[in-house]
């Protein structure tokens, strides 16, 4: 490399930050988790269609269904956030828009997942089932 490069330019030429593998593996492991949850998701969706408030609450108050719902939320939002991150990195060029969207993606995923988990716990603990 020539001496006529700035330190930043040289650092950029050093290749990857060596963190990509974590993203790759996380995306795939969460995919397998969602794949395993899929039959239960479809079964529950069909069973709950047309149910009223009390019926759905009774269903979610059961420890197994509550636990699987929380697992779906965690695996789902983790997976979705990793995927949308790649899409933003691929298609959004403007530096400000790119950083803003990446942060928004992470924040909304974390906030929505935590909110939903709290809602599930509130139904479970409010029902007296556990």
């Amino acid at each position: 490399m020539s001496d006529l490069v700035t330190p930043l330019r040289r650092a950029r030429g050093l290749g990857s930050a060596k963190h990509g593998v974590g993203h790759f593996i996380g995306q795939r492991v969460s995919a397998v988790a969602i794949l395993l949850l899929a039959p239960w998701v479809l079964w529950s969706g069909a069973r709950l269609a047309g149910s009223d408030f009390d019926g759905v609450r009774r269903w979610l108050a059961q420890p197994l269904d509550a636990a699987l719902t929380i697992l779906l939320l965690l695996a789902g939002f983790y997976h979705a956030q990793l995927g949308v991150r790649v899409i933003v990195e691929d298609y959004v060029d403007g530096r400000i828009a790119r950083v803003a969207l990446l942060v928004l993606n992470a924040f909304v995923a974390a906030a929505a997942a935590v909110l939903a988990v709290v809602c599930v716990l509130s139904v479970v603990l409010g029902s007296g089932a556990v």
Partner: protein
Amino acid sequence: MAEIPRLDQTRPLSPHMQIWRWHVTMAASILHRVTGVALWAGLLILVAWLYALAAGPVAFSAVAGALASLPGLAILFMVTLSLFFHLANGIRHLAWDLGFGFQLKTADATAWGAGLFALAANLGFWAWIVTAVRAAS
């Protein structure tokens, strides 16, 4: 976030969307992203539904009513269609990660397979739901 050096800016980028003939594997690839974003929105619908369930009967009937309206059902129909496609095409991706399915004919066949599975499974799933709701009422 690599800056492209000035010299490179005039060089062509690859793949060249304008000159490649559309192919089923390209369609499957972009649909995987589109359906992934749709499922992000689907997760937010799930959160709204769980929030309403925790908030009480009034909030729940508002959200459940919105989802049971015609636009709501149309959105849910697209979400489950996205789910079935993303699921099938995701298995395709996992197979590639294990080193299988890269032959052109196999890649074409599995792309068609993922799309056709999504259409068939979605229709079957909604037929199941309609039957279950009719039987319950």
